């Protein structure tokens, strides 16, 4: 499915950080409708922090974030919650509520925001669990699931209200390559079936080349975005040597070796 021309998320001159500690500044990018957009960068550069700013959990130091044309930064509490209801977010560990079964977790947004009957909710929950290949696991507690299953259950919950925007925070973290590839296929399936706009925070190259339409690359030292565009284009033609190296496993190893040698010299 091709991404549309409508801008779903617009980030304008954003600076993020904690207190006086600036993590990233002058961030500018947009995410188009139906696009799978990856936020990349080394560990600790602020990828997940940026995601938490986009979904309205943190306030930026400066700049603005527009969701479907509406600022989530300046919105009041009730407006912000209304914007947030358009999101589906899956967190690194799944963030399922440990005191509820998987089915109860998925049912929670439906109970909160719809007037569906108990039977209708149960039916909808089963549909969502089937979508993420977890049929029959509704009565399990989150602690009884594997890491990959927890993330898929988290995705089922995120999909409960059929959101237009889906966010994934490190979906591959802690997963083996096969489970990780399954999750990538699931992300692509979500886009194909529902036309969702998807933002993924990751540094897994396999995932990036499998799912991403466009990426931005953040750099800890530069404290900003150092490259953006099609991942294959960036890997092959980006003028920034470190970006090319990051997007090539062998290149990165060579780069690291050279850095080590330079440091020794």
């Amino acid at each position, binding site marked *: 499915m091709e991404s549309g021309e409508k801008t779903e998320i617009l980030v304008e001159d954003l600076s993020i950080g904690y207190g006086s500690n600036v993590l990233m500044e002058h961030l500018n990018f947009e995410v188009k409708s139906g696009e799978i957009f990856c936020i990349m960068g080394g560990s600790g550069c602020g990828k997940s922090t940026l995601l*938490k700013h986009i*979904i*309205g*959990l943190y306030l930026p130091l400066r700049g603005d974030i527009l969701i479907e044309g509406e600022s989530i930064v300046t919105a009041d509490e009730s407006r912000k*919650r*209304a914007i*947030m*209801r358009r*999101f589906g*977010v899956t*967190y*690194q*560990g799944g*963030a*399922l*509520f*440990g005191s509820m079964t998987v089915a109860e977790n998925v049912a*929670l*947004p439906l109970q*909160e*925001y719809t007037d569906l009957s108990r039977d209708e909710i149960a039916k909808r929950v089963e549909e969502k669990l089937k979508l993420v290949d977890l049929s029959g696991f509704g009565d399990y507690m989150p602690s009884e699931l594997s890491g990959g299953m927890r993330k898929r259950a*988290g995705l089922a*919950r995120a999909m409960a209200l059929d959101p237009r925007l889906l966010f994934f925070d490190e979906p591959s973290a802690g997963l083996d390559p096969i489970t990780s590839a399954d999750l990538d296929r699931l992300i692509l399936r979500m886009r194909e079936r529902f036309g969702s706009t998807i933002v993924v925070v990751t540094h897994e190259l396999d995932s990036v080349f499998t799912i991403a339409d466009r990426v931005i690359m953040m750099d800890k030292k530069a404290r900003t975005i150092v490259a953006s565009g099609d991942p294959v284009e960036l890997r092959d033609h980006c003028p920034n040597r470190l970006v090319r190296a990051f997007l090539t496993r062998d290149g990165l190893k060579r780069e690291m070796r050279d850095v080590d040698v330079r440091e020794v010299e």
Partner: protein
Amino acid sequence: MAEPASAGTWMQSFLAALAGPVIFIGRVASIVPLMRQRKQLRLRETAYYLDLCGAKSLPIVLAICFLMGLVMAVNGEIQLSKVGQEIFVVDLVGFAVLKEFGPLMVALIATGRAGSAFAAEIGTMKVDEEISALATMGIRPEAYLVLPKLLAMLLALPVLTVFGDAAGILGGMVIGVTSMDIPIAAYWSRTVESLDYMTFLLGAAKSFAFAVVITLAGCYYGFVTRADAQGVGRAATSAVVASIFLVVIVDVIITILYSFIGY
């Protein structure tokens, strides 16, 4: 001039430390009206906390209050026997238990059981990003997590206080009957004579204030838990220490207020 600067810095840190709890209390206060909506009451969660804070705390409340009444009677007997007024042990135990020690001991037990549990539970949810998940579902975490606990504590603590009061008086009665040879019926009628309903009601009324303080302190420290290895443990400890301190402060304030109306 170093001193004004350090005083300024101290005041700045003090105000900064105060800002978090004040904002939290404001956020909780803003969701209290939601309690009128049945959906927001979350009866299942409220029942769970009622069981945790109430039913499961009852044995320890009964045991401690009984022993406290017993100790108070023993000490009262020793002192009052010096002036030949042992019978006033009944008044002493009844008044002290109903007005002061019953509600206070129940609050301290609830602090250890519920306050620390609230902080640990919310802290763990924060570390596991469950609170972020709630927020991004458009659900106010305070409404979802604090209201059921607050409601359960407001229901459980006064009831536990009544049981604690009864156990304390029973403890005093055991000493009165066994050590001071006061017949049970005489001990009971003296207790009823010496106390009035207001003493009981004013004592029990304190438990509502204690319930609010313990719940807010426990939940607050849960919400500010740091996502590191010691974070949850530290939150639980801080919740207990702060709750005990605040319960005693609130007790002092209420006692002073009661003194204005002659109680």
